[in-house]
């Protein structure tokens, strides 16, 4: 049998011979080798931060370009949708103005009464945008107009996102501030995720497909199928019926247009104007899942399950606290992308489980003769009743 007889010293000598030119052991003739090491060291010492900044700027610029592409595409989608409704439209300056429309939030140095002020401004803004949409597409029926409003809102959000990122990018470039631009780079993945979600929402909104956020109205709608409904607040319907010697009041946004309605106004009217004694409120809503949680998971808890700027939640909590009404919440978990794009199968199929939870709460925590309000919270696009 042949045996290799290589000793440890042979291996070391062999390695030394191979790397020797870069690790000189002496001699003046190899001074340039030292320079080969020292020059890059100095370059990195003096210009290291600039090189790093260049790399970061390139990364942010790439994302910014992608964001611009999304913004342009969304605007094109809006224009094509407007033209499909109103083929005679030629002047789209109104759309440009609409995309730049802003709302100045009320002063909060003295927060007393700020919710009323915010609600006033939101209602004003909504009315104004509806009027602009009507002017852009006068032929549109109520449902189509609400879809167009949703599409314009998405395009406006993408436009704002692009403008903000561009602002901070240019600020970082101008000031050559490493910390400015690194902070932007750190939040870019989250910004891009939101932008991607908004971008993907447009086809669903244009086609009137239910979105993940519509699971609340879908569950509520199922409870009141074939029941008489009344309009209780702006874009909000209510129906009532008997269940196990209890009276159920079910509220949802009026579908199948893309609206969220005013469930807080419905509760306020029911209690304060119609004089109904509400003994329990159950809110069903989509909720953002944490990474690692499954889409369509159903959970229950207490509190007002409603998103938005906070006005609706404040109003509901205000009435619930004043009349000591227990507030229960049933949520259906999903990501931001799933919440604003076409409803996923897992979310749609979670409706049965969420309904069971609602009735479990009613059976276990309420008494016979109680009046229970069930609110299906969310955008009711593509969901009737």
């Amino acid at each position, binding site marked *: 049998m042949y045996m290799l007889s290589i000793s440890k010293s042979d291996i070391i000598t062999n390695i030394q011979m191979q790397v020797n030119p870069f690790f000189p052991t002496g001699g003046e003739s190899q001074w340039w080798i030292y320079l080969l090491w020292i020059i890059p060291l100095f370059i990195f010492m003096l210009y290291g931060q600039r090189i790093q900044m260049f790399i970061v700027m390139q990364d942010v610029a790439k994302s910014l370009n992608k964001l611009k592409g999304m913004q342009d595409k969304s605007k094109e989608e809006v224009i094509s949708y407007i033209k499909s409704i109103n083929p005679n439209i030629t002047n789209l300056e109104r759309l440009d103005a609409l995309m730049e429309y802003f709302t100045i939030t009320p002063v909060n140095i003295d927060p007393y009464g700020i919710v009323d002020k915010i609600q006033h401004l939101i209602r004003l803004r909504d009315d104004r945008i509806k009027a602009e949409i009507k002017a852009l597409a006068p032929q549109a029926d109520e449902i189509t107009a609400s879809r167009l409003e949703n599409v314009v809102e998405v395009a406006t959000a993408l436009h704002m996102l692009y403008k903000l990122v561009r602002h901070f990018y240019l600020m970082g470039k101008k000031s050559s501030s490493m910390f400015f631009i690194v902070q932007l780079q750190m939040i870019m993945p989250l910004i891009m995720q939101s932008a991607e979600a908004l971008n993907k929402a447009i086809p669903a909104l244009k086609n009137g*497909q239910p979105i993940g956020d519509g699971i609340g109205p879908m569950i509520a709608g199922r409870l009141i*199928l074939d029941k008489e409904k009344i309009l209780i607040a702006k874009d909000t319907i209510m129906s009532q019926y008997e269940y196990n010697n209890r009276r159920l009041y079910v509220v949802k946004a009026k579908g199948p247009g893309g609206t969220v309605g005013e469930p807080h106004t419905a509760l306020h009217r029911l209690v304060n104007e119609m004089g109904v004694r509400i003994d329990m409120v159950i809110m069903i809503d989509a909720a953002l899942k944490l990474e690692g949680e499954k889409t369509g998971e159903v959970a229950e808890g207490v509190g007002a399950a409603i998103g938005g700027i906070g006005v609706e939640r404040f109003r509901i909590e205000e009435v619930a606290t004043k009349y000591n009404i227990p507030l229960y919440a049933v949520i259906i978990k999903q990501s931001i992308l799933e919440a604003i794009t*076409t409803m996923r199968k897992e979310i*749609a199929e979670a409706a049965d489980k969420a309904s069971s939870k609602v009735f479990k709460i009613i059976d276990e925590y309420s008494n016979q003769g109680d009046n229970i309000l069930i609110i299906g919270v969310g955008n009711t696009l593509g*969901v009737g009743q």
Partner: protein
Amino acid sequence: MNSNNIDKEKDKQHVVYTIEQCKVCGVKNKRTFKVGDYVFKDGGSCLRCSGSTLVIMIYAEPVNNV
């Protein structure tokens, strides 16, 4: 952290389906979504008993699940 490392979910293609259920025999029918469909809209006639149907769900499924 690279800003392009966004959820891979975004690259998945989805097909949207409308699920109709017969009000009489309860049979469900799954078909591709058509513009104008919405949940709780009266659907076509049942394939089994010709009764009237109701759209009970509209959802998106990834293409590879089809």
